[in-house]
């Protein structure tokens, strides 16, 4: 028995029941060939990098299973014939890699959620600022008080990085708008994680354009 990583893309136009049926059929193929499914979860619904069979979107399903090596060919051949599966890949893995991949996958998912929440909080703060600005124009008394606060905080985030911005905007968003309170809370919690992610990007940018960085390095070393 070997460990395998198995990802497949489902036809996104299928409804939930039909998708489930396809997944069950695929699971049946794996089991029918002597495989033991360790995990079978929807991974992501995402836009395809290029169209497959006329589809621009796909529902990615990620499965880990153990099976005898001789069964893989049979599994692949049968999955290839399965309707509703746009594409699939079967790769060897071991338990350690699987567990690490799953943990890393979860971490990335959380980071992405935190980033989205931070962006939502920022958007909410911006909306609050605009609303406050409008309110200030009409010189309404209760709105005028809020406009001073949220306008101040919303001005700051624009200059700072996304992660750092989440904190001040989250505070005022909670005060100025009830709708804003929901995305703002997780953003404040995960502000640390987003800051890290945001800090990673400048590094990448510096790396992508070595002409900027390299002359400096040379001077330092010489």
């Amino acid at each position: 028995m070997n460990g395998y990583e198995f990802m497949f893309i489902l036809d996104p136009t299928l409804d939930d029941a039909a998708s489930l049926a396809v997944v069950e059929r695929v699971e049946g193929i794996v089991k029918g060939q002597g495989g033991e499914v360790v995990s079978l979860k929807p991974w992501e619904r995402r836009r395809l990098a290029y169209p497959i069979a006329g589809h621009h979107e796909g529902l990615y399903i990620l499965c880990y299973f153990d099976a005898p090596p001789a069964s893989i060919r049979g599994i692949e051949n049968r999955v290839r014939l399965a309707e509703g599966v746009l594409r699939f890949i079967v790769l060897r893995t071991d338990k350690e890699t699987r567990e690490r991949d799953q943990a890393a996958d979860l971490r990335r998912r959380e980071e992405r959620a935190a980033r989205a929440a931070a962006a939502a909080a920022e958007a909410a703060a911006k909306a609050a600022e605009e609303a406050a600005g409008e309110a200030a124009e009409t010189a309404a008394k209760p709105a005028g008080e809020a406009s001073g606060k949220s306008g101040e905080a919303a001005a700051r985030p624009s200059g700072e990085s996304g992660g750092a911005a989440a904190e001040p905007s989250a505070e005022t968003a909670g005060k100025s708008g009830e709708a804003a309170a929901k995305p703002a809370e997780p953003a404040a919690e995960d502000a640390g994680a987003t800051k890290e992610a945001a800090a990673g990007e400048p590094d990448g940018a510096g790396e992508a354009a070595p002409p900027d960085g390299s002359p400096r390095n040379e001077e330092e070393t010489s």
Partner: protein
Amino acid sequence: MSDRPATPRRRRRQNVRRVRVNPLLNGVDRVDWKDVDFLREFLGDRAKIAPRRVSRAGARAQRQIRIAIKRARQMALLPYE
């Protein structure tokens, strides 16, 4: 500034090998083909895989990146072009 001599002495460029460091690869000992955002850093505008000269990756890391990008392309996670 004002302290600087009128004719600055040209510093000779030493033939020191620069250390290959890619900040992205710090702490990465296995590249996951499903980590699309990470792999995207190694694709140029034309979706070509960055050469080692640009990616600043060691042989092992570059090989893992190359294989991971190709797998991601098969699964339409990354573009071919």
